Every structure is written in structure tokens, then in C-alpha cells.
């Protein structure tokens, strides 16, 4: 067993106590272990241990055809798996040089923004729970359910969605999906407003969160933070605005930024992002009106599975079906990095292909992994109860942390 650095800390009087926070603890919302040295209730030093649910996705991906990697991406950030799925599809499409029809892009925007809302609902709701307010969490959770029902209409599953395919969607959005979406757009904004009125000016909530775990923009950038955490520290970096993918350049939205990177600003930034996501979905719905309603995938028969009835009657369809299922698609030998704005930050896919049926190397730039490394250093000098709140507001998802 290797020396754990926390044990070598200087404590000649033996006055400090060691606390194992995790690996399973109700307040950490996932499998995280932090070995903390405490002076009373104040943290002197801490060491994070991660990897409890490491599943070797990068190794598995080297042995699978491209389309079989989508379910692996589901299981990274499982609170917003559609963003991971879409990010992966777009990476492969970039490699293969496929461009999507506008309607597919807009449908993708709808699904990704729904995922972002559901992720932020959980994060901000749980932050409320950790500060002692259960009401907001339960109230908002109903609308995560509404989002999951929309996923269900689109792809048939709820949490690990495996939504869409390389080249588009596996089926068109049905009328029920659009009805549920419109109902969500009507019902959710007042709830979000009420949620904000429960917290934003709540004395107890502000006392617990304001000025807790402040992060300067320099520190945030030096630790390669991204997403709502970086924006709460005052840096307006959003992949959607900086390097628009999936036609985000057609949309009008704002990138909310906070001022001092504390838990309170992160909360406000996430709430504001939910409103921007709602705006994006509304715009996407309006844009869909002008697009032909029967297009839900690109016209790329060599990469996109043909309809099943054609496979039995049409020779070309049978050939393509066989080749795609066996993973024998013509992929160029090249390398591509594609980033999407995940709910936690820049979710990057670095894909190296040697022209074979599987990636030669696939690396996931997981925002939770990179954001979490500041947790132990920034906990120094913090109260234990503040460190718990800090972890909630970092929104570290164990699946994405460990991949």
C-alpha cells in the first residue's frame, strides 16, 4: 500500500483528527472518498480518492464499432446522457464528414437543452436539500420526470437514453412528444420562478452559500474548469457560443456569468442557464415550423441504418444494414477533437481512427474529472459543513468522474 499523503502531514501533537468522508455517504451523492484532517470542524488538509466506479470505457471503446460506443457515453454523466450521446454522434459525424439537415440540428438542440435543464434541476435541487430545504427539490423533481417522459417518447428510455444515431435520430419525434414538450414549456417557467423565490433571497440559504468556496477566475482557469463553475467565477466561456455546433449559431441566447465563483453564484448561474435553455427550446420549436417535418436523419445510407422493411426487400439496404451492423463503415484514418457544452462543462471527445471498425484511441475529456481536482485544495480552511455544500454545487457526477 502506498503512502497516503495525508498521513505524512505534520501533526506532532496528534491534535488533528482524521475523517473518512465517503466512499459512501448520504451527503456526497455518489461514490467519493475524501480523507480529511480536521482541527475541530475546520479542514486542515484533504486527499481525494477517486476511481470507485471506473469501468474502463476508453479501453472498451477500442474494441467496439462506433455505434456501440453510444451506450458507454450514456453512463458518464447519467443526469444528462443525451448531451453525451449527441456529443459522440457529432464527433463521429465530424470524422466521417457528414453534415446534418437543419431540422436534425434543431431537434438535437431541443434534446440537449432538455438534458441541461434536467441536470441543473438536480444540482440546484440537491443544493437546496444540503442546506436544509427539501421543498424546492421535490417541487422541481416533478419536472425532471416531465423531461424524462419526453425522452421516452423520442427514444423509449429515460435515464441512459442512447438517444439518436450517427447520422440523425432513429425515428421522428411524434406528436405526443411535441405536446409534452409544449406542456413542459408552459408549466416549467412559473415553477422555476417559484423555486428562485424560495431561495434567491432566502436568509438561511444566502448565509450558507454566499462567500463559501470563492474561486477566482485565475484559479478556475489554471485548474481548467469549464461550464457553469467557470462562468460563476466570471469567465464567459461557453462552447455553444465560442465554437457553435449543431447550429447553435442560429439561436439567440445569453451566457450568464457570476462574479466571485462562490456557491451562491454557481446556483444563480445554473438557474439562469435553465431560463436560457427554455429560450433555446422555444426558438428551436419555432424554427422547426419552417422545416420539412419528415426529415429526422441525414441522407447517408452508408452510415445510417436503413428502415427494417427495406432490408428484407431491397438489395442495397441489406448490404448497408449488414455493413453498418458489422461496423464495416468507411472511416478515414484521422484524428478529431470535438467538444460540446455538457451540463458540467466542456465535454470533449478525442477520437483517433486508423480506418478500422473501432476507434484506435478514444479519450473523453470529462468535465467532472477535471473540475473535481480543485476540491481537496480548496477545502483547506473550510468548515466541514461548507465542504459538503461545495461538493453539491460542483455537481460532480461519479460516472463522469471515473468513466
Amino acid at each position, binding site marked *: 500500500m*502506498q503512502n497516503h499523503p495525508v498521513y505524512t502531514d505534520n501533526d506532532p501533537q496528534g491534535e488533528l483528527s482524521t475523517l473518512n468522508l465517503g466512499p459512501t455517504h448520504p451527503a456526497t451523492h455518489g461514490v467519493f472518498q475524501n480523507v480529511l484532517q480536521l482541527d475541530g470542524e475546520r479542514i486542515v488538509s484533504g486527499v481525494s480518492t477517486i476511481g470507485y466506479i471506473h469501468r474502463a470505457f476508453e*479501453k472498451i471503446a477500442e474494441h467496439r464499432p462506433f455505434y456501440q460506443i453510444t451506450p458507454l457515453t450514456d453512463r458518464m454523466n447519467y443526469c444528462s446522457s443525451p448531451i453525451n450521446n449527441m456529443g459522440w454522434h457529432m464527433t463521429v459525424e465530424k470524422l466521417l464528414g457528414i453534415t446534418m439537415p437543419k431540422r436534425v440540428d434543431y431537434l438535437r438542440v431541443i434534446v440537449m437543452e432538455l438534458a441541461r435543464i434536467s441536470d441543473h434541476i438536480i444540482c440546484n435541487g440537491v443544493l437546496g436539500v444540503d442546506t436544509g430545504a427539501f421543498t424546492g427539490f421535490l417541487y422541481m423533481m416533478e419536472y425532471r420526470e416531465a423531461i424524462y417522459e419526453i425522452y421516452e417518447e423520442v427514444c423509449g428510455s429515460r435515464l441512459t437514453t442512447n438517444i439518436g444515431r450517427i447520422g440523425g435520430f432513429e425515428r421522428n419525434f411524434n406528436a405526443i412528444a411535441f405536446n409534452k414538450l409544449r406542456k413542459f414549456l408552459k408549466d416549467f417557467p412559473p415553477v422555476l420562478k417559484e423555486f428562485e423565490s424560495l431561495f434567491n433571497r432566502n436568509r438561511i440559504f444566502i448565509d450558507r452559500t454566499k462567500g463559501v468556496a470563492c474561486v477566482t477566475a485565475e484559479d478556475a482557469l489554471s485548474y481548467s474548469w469549464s461550464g457553469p463553475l467557470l462562468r460563476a467565477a466570471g469567465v464567459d466561456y461557453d462552447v455553444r457560443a465560442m465554437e457553435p455546433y449543431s447550429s447553435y449559431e442560429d439561436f439567440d441566447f445569453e451566457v450568464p456569468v457570476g462574479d466571485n465563483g462562490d456557491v451562491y453564484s454557481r446556483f444563480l448561474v445554473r438557474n439562469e442557464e435553465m431560463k436560457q435553455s427554455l429560450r433555446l427550446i422555444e426558438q428551436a420549436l419555432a424554427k422547426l415550423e419552417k422545416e420539412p417535418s419528415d426529415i429526422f436523419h441525414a441522407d447517408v445510407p452508408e452510415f445510417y441504418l436503413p428502415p427494417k422493411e427495406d432490408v428484407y426487400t431491397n438489395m442495397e439496404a441489406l448490404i448497408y444494414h449488414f455493413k453498418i451492423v458489422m461496423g464495416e463503415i468507411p472511416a478515414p484514418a484521422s484524428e478529431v*477533437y470535438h467538444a460540446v457544452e455538457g451540463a458540467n462543462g466542456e465535454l470533449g471527445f*478525442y477520437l483517433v481512427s486508423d480506418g478500422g471498425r473501432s476507434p484506435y484511441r478514444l479519450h473523453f475529456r470529462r468535465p467532472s474529472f477535471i473540475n473535481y481536482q480543485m476540491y481537496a485544495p480548496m477545502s483547506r480552511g473550510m468548515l466541514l459543513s461548507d465542504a459538503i455544500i461545495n461538493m453539491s454545487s460542483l455537481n460532480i457526477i461519479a460516472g463522469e468522474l471515473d468513466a
Partner: protein
Amino acid sequence: MGKITNEELLKSISNKFEGQITVVGEPYGLLTLETQSENIIALLSYLKSDPNLQLSYLTDITAIHYPEQEKAIGVIYHLHSLVNNVRVRIKVFIDADNCHIPTATELWNGANWMERETYDFFGVIFDGHPDLRRILNVDDMTAFPMRKEFPLEDPNRVDKKDYFFGR
């Protein structure tokens, strides 16, 4: 401030690092350079601190294994300029048996875990790293599992033999 092009970026880098970098290409618009392990820190710190380029955001550090190459392990850095909105990819190839490369933790705190992950999976030793331990795998593991010779499944497993499946 607008986006700077790959040509301008390459020009200013090759002025400073004449003969020390080679251009691999621009796959999908991302300028890819190759350099040697003795130059990597100088190159990274130049890219980070140059006031015109400002490639100061470390997106990612990872590695790749080409067993048939003489220098089999490639360490790959992705940098991003949030001001100029341009990305660059830098590769350094090193020996698989003696893979040492200087650490980038002096430039970015965020490099710490990225390098630990790369060490964990490829066995790349980042000289000068403050805490180079395994991060996702167990501490007493001896192999580096993302290297190509490491099998996906344990070859000694007996529960997946063909005769169990009637083959």
C-alpha cells in the same frame, strides 16, 4: 479581437522554435504539431504566456500507444485560447520502455490529475510531478492498461470458453 488563423499561429511558433517543431497537419481544422520531450515545457509556456496567442487554457492531456513505432508512446496536449478562440494540439513521442517527460503542473494546476491519469493508463512518468500516483486504477496494479498489449479481458478466464456456448 478576432480569431487568429492557423497560419498566423504556426508562423509565430516556428519563428520562436525554429527546427524544434514539425507540423503533422491540420485534421479538421485543428493545427497539430510535434515536438520533443526536451522542448515541450518551453513550447507550452511560450504558448501560454505569449500576449498575442494566449493559448492559456489547458483542455486536456492524454496519451496514445503505437506499439509498432520506435517511439511508441505519444503524449498529446490540447490547448485552447479563450481570447482568440483557436485550438492547438501538440504531440510528443517517447520510448515505451523509458517514458519520461517533464511535467506541466508548474504551468497549470489542472495538469495534475490529467498527468496522473496518463501515468495510470500508459505508464508515462512526468518528471517533477508533485504526486504521481495511480488515480482511477487500484494502487497495487502493475500493468498500464491502455497500452495495446494489455488485453481487454483476462485471458485466463474460464467462464467464457466456447464449449459453454455450444461452439
